[in-house]
């Protein structure tokens, strides 16, 4: 009898969780419909392809951020890491125009991996709070970027054709950026849901003490998560510089907030331990639509930020209210 009640309570919670994702989907559909009515040019293949290409970098980063947040951490340094890895790869390609694009990508990822591993060591081995460790590293990395570039910009004419083609080229008719984002989503969706290591990421986040006690190498997993986030930021850095055809010291300043917002919109709990790749995907798409479609319906670009903020706040507050009513119902079912 008691087990039955517990099961029902659990089911109610699960249902609430599903409603949340459904709600997000409904919201996206309604938003698209409204935009489509105001501007029939919105839902065309061309525009959707554009929107996806513009959202791909955000998508790649949000996967890494989701893993960091799942362990109960946060990473504020990714904007700086994007700038550094983008700058290093752009400078290399300026000096050696002949190197193939894949080498540039690997180079950027290595730079990012180094930064991420450093953060991982600070957080996992030395128990520095993630927000402080990444804040400190953010400053350091930003400063190093200026030192490496000596304050100068790298512009598009200094980059080789191959480097620029990283973001403009296509695989099977799909823009490279979108294809990469799909690969990253698929890989991490599989990793988080189907592998032992992936499940351990959730375990570490939902109850660190229990994870420790049950023999999960908590510290290694935390370090691993930050290293992956770093490598993905490195990848994003190369893509960013290739897409916008310029590398500057202040590239992607403050972009970490967009990425965190995408994860939070997608239902990743900032307390750690809960969040799904499907929700994250919806959250990223929603943020992408907000970023790209508001100008289409003649919303002043200066209103964009406030609208974005209000929608993020509304989404997290609804999330809380839905969860509360779910728990309320679960309690009521239990009482009888």
């Amino acid at each position, binding site marked *: 009898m008691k087990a039955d009640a517990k099961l029902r309570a659990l089911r109610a919670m699960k249902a609430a969780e599903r409603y949340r994702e459904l709600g997000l989907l409904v919201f996206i559909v309604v938003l698209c419909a409204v935009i489509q009515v105001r501007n029939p040019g919105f839902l065309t293949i061309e525009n959707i392809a554009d929107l996806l290409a513009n959202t791909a970098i955000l998508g790649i980063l949000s996967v890494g951020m989701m893993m960091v947040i799942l362990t109960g951490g946060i990473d504020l340094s990714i904007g700086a890491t994007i700038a550094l890895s983008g700058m290093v790869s752009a400078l290399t390609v300026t000096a050696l125009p002949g190197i193939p694009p894949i080498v540039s990508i690997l180079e950027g990822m290595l730079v990012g991996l180094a930064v991420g591993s450093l953060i991982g060591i600070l957080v996992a081995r030395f128990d520095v709070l993630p927000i*402080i460790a990444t804040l400190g590293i953010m*400053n*350091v990395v930003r400063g*190093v970027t200026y*030192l490496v570039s000596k304050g100068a910009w790298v512009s598009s004419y200094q980059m080789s054709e191959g480097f620029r083609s990283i973001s403009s080229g296509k695989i099977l008719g799909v823009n490279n950026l979108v294809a990469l984002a799909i690969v990253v989503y698929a890989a991490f969706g599989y990793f988080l849901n189907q592998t032992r290591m992936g499940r351990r990421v959730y375990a570490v986040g939902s109850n660190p003490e229990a994870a420790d006690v049950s023999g999960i190498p908590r510290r290694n997993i935390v370090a691993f998560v930050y290293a992956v986030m770093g490598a993905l930021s490195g990848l994003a850095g190369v893509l960013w510089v290739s897409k916008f055809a310029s590398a500057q010291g202040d590239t992607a300043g403050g972009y970490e907030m967009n990425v*965190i*917002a995408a994860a939070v919109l997608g239902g990743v709990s900032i307390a750690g331990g809960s969040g799904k790749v499907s929700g994250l995907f919806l959250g990223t798409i929603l943020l992408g639509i907000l970023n790209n479609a508001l100008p289409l319906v003649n919303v002043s670009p200066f209103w964009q930020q406030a609208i974005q*903020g209000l929608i993020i706040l509304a989404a*997290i507050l609804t999330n*809380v209210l839905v969860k509360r009513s779910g728990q309320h119902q679960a309690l009521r079912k239990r009482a009888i």
Partner: protein
Amino acid sequence: MSERRIEIDRPWSWRRFFLRWEWLLVLIFLGVNVVNSSLSEYYLNLDTFLGTPMSFLDKAFLVLPMTFVIILGNIDISVASNVALSAVVMATSYNLGLPMPAAIILCLLVSTACGVVNGLLMTRFKELSAVIVTLSTMIIYRGIAYMILENRAAGKFPEWFSFFGWGSVGPVPFILIVFAVCAVFFSVLLHKTAFGRKVFGMGNNLMASRYSGVRTDSIILAVSALTGLMAGFTAVFLSSRMGSTRPNVAVGYELEVIAMVVLGGVSTSGGKGSLAGPILAIFSVGFLNYGLGLVNVQAQILLIIIGLLLILSVLVLKVRFRGRHSHSAVQPDDVSIRRR
């Protein structure tokens, strides 16, 4: 069973007095000044000494309430956006014909209201962490500033308004006097009143504080309102010093302010720290910045130095903590003990 004592009133000892984190900051401060004065023969005089703080004190107002916020175990990343919004409201309302004193009062009201909104969200929706609440209000506040002023600048303040940022009473800059008054007020509030003790208590154990009758929600609201008010102060002094304002002023202040508080030895997991540390940190880093300017070092090096100092200070504090309380069951700095 091993005996564990909770010392409430530790006996005063010379050793403990000189092992305090604040002494390290004093040493850094003195070291910076010795190096500075060896760099330039014009450095060591009263005018430089009193004049330099003008350049960095505007954001120092935010450090005072942020210390409270971090001792509570929270964090507020919306302060810089709050500064931008209230500065924009002040400048716009003045340009629309409101007299300047009224515009300043409006600025303080708006900033306090923004703080209260943060506080209300945090107390009504306890499931949400402070990071998330202030992240979203950070985007909203700056968004509203952009809605009001788009990409224009507003200003043309009356002549006397520049007194806030540039004026001085005798040899002492006005901003230094106001800051000193605020610093004394916040220090007394934190270290000498019941309110301050409750803040420390809540930082150590929120649940225990609530069950022992502390009205935790009111305290969080009060601290949020104070944070907002100080953001208004920063807005006034910053606008006065710059002579005009834009929606993108004070970008990144929140991170600098948090860095100062942590450098000042306040534990980010809450419940520990003093106000003397962050105030010393402001002056050490401010004068360091000035000295680096003397030898023409790029501002970017300062970024690296602040970043490294931040991480080092956390590491050093941790090692000290482990050394002295290794038998304690609770390690407040342990990442595994998180706030839900």
